[in-house]
């Protein structure tokens, strides 16, 4: 039998029992679309978080004071408090060849005012390298000037939102503003890069780290952000940081170094697991659709006893009968899957319209997955009815009317 004729014959058979066919197609479509949709949503979420993390910078390492429990090793005796991270620690890190840039960070919040207008804002003390490390962009003016870390200066860079709140429509560049009781000249305005992971660079004021130390009256750093010289150097950079700080902290490992790629990998894993779980749950609806297909085919086999007997009388061997009925269930499931794919596609388009910032899209492999799922479901649940049909005794099948 020619392939075209098999498909044509099976198509005629499925369209002959319209009501059941439509119901089955619907079930299949819902099953496939929910699997595709949920997996794609999970995947979009994963990509969103990863992108956000990646946009923080490349090859980043973050040095935090205090040892995290997960690093292991014996617990410190007598519960000693960790040593502070100092500016000199940060400067010392630049010696390593595995490290390209270092930016110390002090963070705090302080009232920021222009004339009568006052706002409580996040104030970051850092250095010129922060611009490159954090992939920040300037809208106007310059970033903090390079130079000695322990030499401050009464200059500041403000975020785009802060600029709007403090200066309205007026020019901010070159103007003075007040942080606490000190005056700073605005030398730059950051470009609006949006929110990344809740850290809104639009609302910060960045000042030289030494000035921040005296403003907040503390020497200890909030953290040090380090950029490794390249991707392969991340591991070496981490080791270098640990050994340099250990040497400076009298042999104590009292810091924690987090690498960006480790965080990325962790999030990647979590999201993949989540996606698979959700997809697996959705797959249950596919099983329901599969059982519907099996049912409709079993009904078809028992309704079409005499037709099957006839096909055998006309010279169809068992394998051919099997093939015809499998084709029927495969057609049902593939058509259902195609509809399901369209359904998922339009639903995703709709969602993406409502949530443009998340870059929602169907996973690129979802058409492949849809057809795979469909064929799998159709064939697995089609085998039993097809076998039953192929094993009918022709004389018996024909004698029943």
């Amino acid at each position, binding site marked *: *039998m*020619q392939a075209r*004729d098999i498909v044509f*014959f099976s198509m*005629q*058979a499925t369209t*002959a029992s319209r009501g059941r066919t439509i119901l089955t197609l619907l079930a299949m479509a819902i099953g496939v679309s929910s699997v595709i949709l949920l997996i794609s949503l999970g995947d979009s979420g994963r990509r969103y978080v990863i992108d956000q993390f990646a946009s923080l910078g490349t090859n980043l390492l973050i040095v935090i004071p205090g040892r995290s429990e997960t690093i292991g090793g014996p617990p410190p005796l007598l519960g000693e408090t960790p040593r502070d991270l100092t500016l000199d620690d940060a400067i010392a890190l630049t010696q390593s060849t595995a490290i390209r840039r270092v930016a110390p960070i002090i963070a705090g919040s302080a009232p920021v005012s222009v004339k009568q207008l006052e706002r409580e804002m996040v104030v970051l003390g850092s250095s010129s390298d922060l611009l490159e490390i954090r992939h920040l962009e300037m809208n106007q003016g310059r970033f903090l000037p390079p130079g000695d870390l322990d030499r401050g200066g009464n200059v500041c860079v403000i975020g785009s939102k802060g600029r709007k709140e403090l200066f309205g429509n007026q020019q901010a560049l070159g103007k003075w503003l007040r942080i606490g009781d000190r005056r700073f000249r605005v030398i730059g305005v950051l470009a609006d890069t949006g929110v990344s992971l809740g850290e809104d660079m639009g609302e910060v004021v960045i000042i030289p780290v030494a000035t921040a130390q005296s403003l907040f009256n503390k020497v200890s750093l909030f953290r040090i952000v380090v950029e490794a010289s390249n991707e392969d150097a991340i591991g070496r950079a981490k080791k270098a940081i640990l050994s340099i700080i250990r040497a400076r902290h009298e042999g104590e490992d009292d810091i924690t170094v987090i690498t960006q790629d480790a965080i990325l990998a962790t999030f990647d894993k979590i999201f993949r697991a989540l996606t698979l779980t959700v997809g697996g749950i959705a797959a249950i609806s596919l099983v329901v659709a599969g059982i519907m297909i099996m049912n409709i085919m079993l009904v078809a086999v028992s309704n079409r006893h*005499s*037709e099957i*007997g*006839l*096909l*055998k*009388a*006309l*010279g*169809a*061997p*068992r*394998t*051919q009968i099997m093939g015809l009925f499998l084709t029927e269930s495969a057609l049902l499931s593939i058509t259902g899957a195609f509809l399901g794919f369209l359904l998922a596609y339009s639903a995703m388009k709709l969602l993406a319209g409502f949530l443009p910032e998340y870059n929602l899209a169907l996973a690129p492999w979802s058409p492949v997955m849809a057809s795979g799922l469909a064929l799998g479901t159709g064939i697995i649940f089609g085998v039993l009815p097809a076998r039953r049909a192929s094993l009918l*005794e*022709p*004389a018996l099948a*024909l*004698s029943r*009317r």
Partner: protein
Amino acid sequence: MIKLQHIERVFLVGEEEVHALRDVDFSASGGEYIAIMGPSGSGKSTLLNILGLLDRPDGGTYELDNIMTTSLDDKKQANVRRHKIGFVFQFFHLVPRLTAEQNVELPLVLAGVDKTERKKRVLETLESFGIGDRVHHRPDQLSGGQRQRVAIARATIMKPTVILADEPTGNLDRASGNDVVDILEELNSQGITLIMVTHDPELGERAKRRIKMVDGRIEGDTATQS
């Protein structure tokens, strides 16, 4: 050439064994016209089903055109059905969703014959059976006589050597029944072996050889009695 030897067929109905065929010996040569008669339940259909390879005997051997069919596997048996045997049923067994043309085309489709070739042969056959104007009608749009003619067209499209007809007129009025038998006899005159089960003595008389079955046995055969 047909040769049955010691054919047994036993059905299990509940606990009870029903002997549909008991030690049946039967042979026929090519081109014969045979009527099988006998009371209801005497095993006529069972015999025909075994001749048509729609049923397997529980004992005995069946040779068709020098092929020992009883030892063939499913695929080879199907192949013999496809090429050597045409079946005509009391209840027509047309596929209701297919047109007359598609029903007749079915054996060719199953055999993988090309579309253009199929079309030609089907139209020729339907023409010659006098239903060339009913090509696109479905079975429910045809009269009983027309349905049986479509069924006979389907049974002959593969040019079989034997036609097995199980009460082909059982569901027809006398006039269309006679037409159908005329067609079958015409096919027989072209050299096809015709074996027909019938209740109707008048139709039975038309056959050159008559076999009478009683209780699963061949009780009379005009070929051996005379």
